[in-house]
Structures are given as structure tokens and as C-alpha cells.
């Protein structure tokens, strides 16, 4: 009873291994954002958190045995000359959906990565401003200065 339970749990975890990894990464990032005192460590934790979410979405769109989401097309010189008619003729051949990885999460995550780096830039600019004003980036020292000043 015990052995088969452990084996079934192990098989379950192995089948959904990507979720386990993404949850661990997300909790690491959240821990850094909440518990750490240093502002730059908090920003590093924010970046880890964002990339963990991106890992989650990309792993959802994965399909076993499928290829990358760029259509396999037979390039020929006549296709370039004839334009759309030839390409539409090629498209009438059946495109097997299960042969290609789901491209929709990739599109959303491209946006997410670039927005992530924009947020990182603004957060680091704010950290530099805080250092110029207070002389430190440790949160407890800043709180002390705010309370006494």
C-alpha cells in the first residue's frame, strides 16, 4: 500500500515536473522580495519572479514530439515570382496542428520579457536615486533615517 502510493505520487510529480520547478522558482523570488533588506536584492527577486511566470506559460504550450512554430515550407523560385497564388496553394495542403508547438504563449511571453526589462531599468534608476538621497540601500537604515529625520 505504501509503496504503490509513493510510486504513484512520484509518477505524478514526474509528469508535472515543470509545475514543481516553476513554483519553487516563484517562491524563491517572492522570498527575496518580502524578506530581504537590501533594495537591489529585492529587484533581483522581482526579476526571478517574472522569469518564473514566463517559464510556466511557455511550458504549458509545449507538445511532446512537436517541432518549432515555424511552418515547414518548400521554398522555390516560382513561389517568389507568383506571389500569393502559389503560397495559398501550398497552404491548402493540410497543416497538421499537432505537429507544431502552440505559438500563442510564446507571443504573450515576448511582450512579458521586454516589459520586464523596462521595469528593471526604472527600478534600478529608483534605487540609484534612493542611494543619492539617503546614502544607503538597506531598508532598515532608510526607515531609521525617515523616523528620526
Amino acid at each position, binding site marked *: 500500500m505504501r509503496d504503490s502510493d509513493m510510486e504513484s505520487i512520484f509518477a505524478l510529480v514526474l509528469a508535472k515536473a515543470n509545475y514543481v520547478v516553476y513554483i519553487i522558482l516563484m517562491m524563491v523570488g517572492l522570498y527575496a522580495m518580502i524578506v530581504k533588506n537590501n533594495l537591489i536584492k529585492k529587484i533581483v527577486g522581482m526579476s526571478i519572479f517574472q522569469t518564473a511566470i514566463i517559464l510556466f506559460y511557455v511550458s504549458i504550450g509545449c507538445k511532446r514530439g512537436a517541432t518549432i512554430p515555424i511552418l515547414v515550407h518548400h521554398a522555390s523560385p516560382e513561389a517568389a515570382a507568383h506571389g500569393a497564388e502559389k503560397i495559398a496553394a501550398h497552404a491548402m495542403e493540410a497543416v497538421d496542428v499537432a505537429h507544431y508547438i502552440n505559438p500563442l*504563449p510564446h507571443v504573450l511571453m515576448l511582450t512579458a520579457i521586454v516589459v520586464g526589462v523596462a521595469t528593471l531599468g526604472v527600478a534600478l534608476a529608483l534605487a540609484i536615486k534612493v542611494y543619492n538621497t539617503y546614502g544607503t540601500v538597506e531598508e532598515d537604515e532608510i526607515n531609521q533615517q525617515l523616523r528620526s529625520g
Partner: protein
Amino acid sequence: MFWQLELIILLLVIICAIAAITVRDLLSSALLLGAYSFLLCLIWAVMGAVDVAFTEATVGAGVSTVFCVAAVFHTTRRTKD
């Protein structure tokens, strides 16, 4: 690719992430973030997300690491925790 490679790289990703928030030197933390981004790019390339891997390689392991290092140079390098 075979799944053992994916599991090994995923384990390295977790180790890099935990190390990036634990070390006391902020410059090492920024560079570990660059290594973490690069390993994540490898995972996505193995999973078949080539556009996402390309973007993460340029943005995460390139430009984002440079921004972090520039910010560390203008604040302090040591930290207490």
C-alpha cells in the same frame, strides 16, 4: 532533446536563483542573475520556444545584466544580508 538534459538544467536554474539572492556581494548577485537568464534561455530552446529563447538571450543575459552591474557600481557593493 531527451528529458534528462532538461531536468539537469532545471536543477541548475534553481541553484542559480537561490545563490543569486543569498550571496553577500551585490556584483556577484548581478552576474548570477545573468547566468540564471542564460540557463533559462537554454531550457526554452530545448522546449522549442525559439523566439522566446532568442529574446531572453539578448535581453536577459545581455542588456539586463549590464543594467544591474551599472546600478551596483553607483550604489554600494557590500550588503549585510
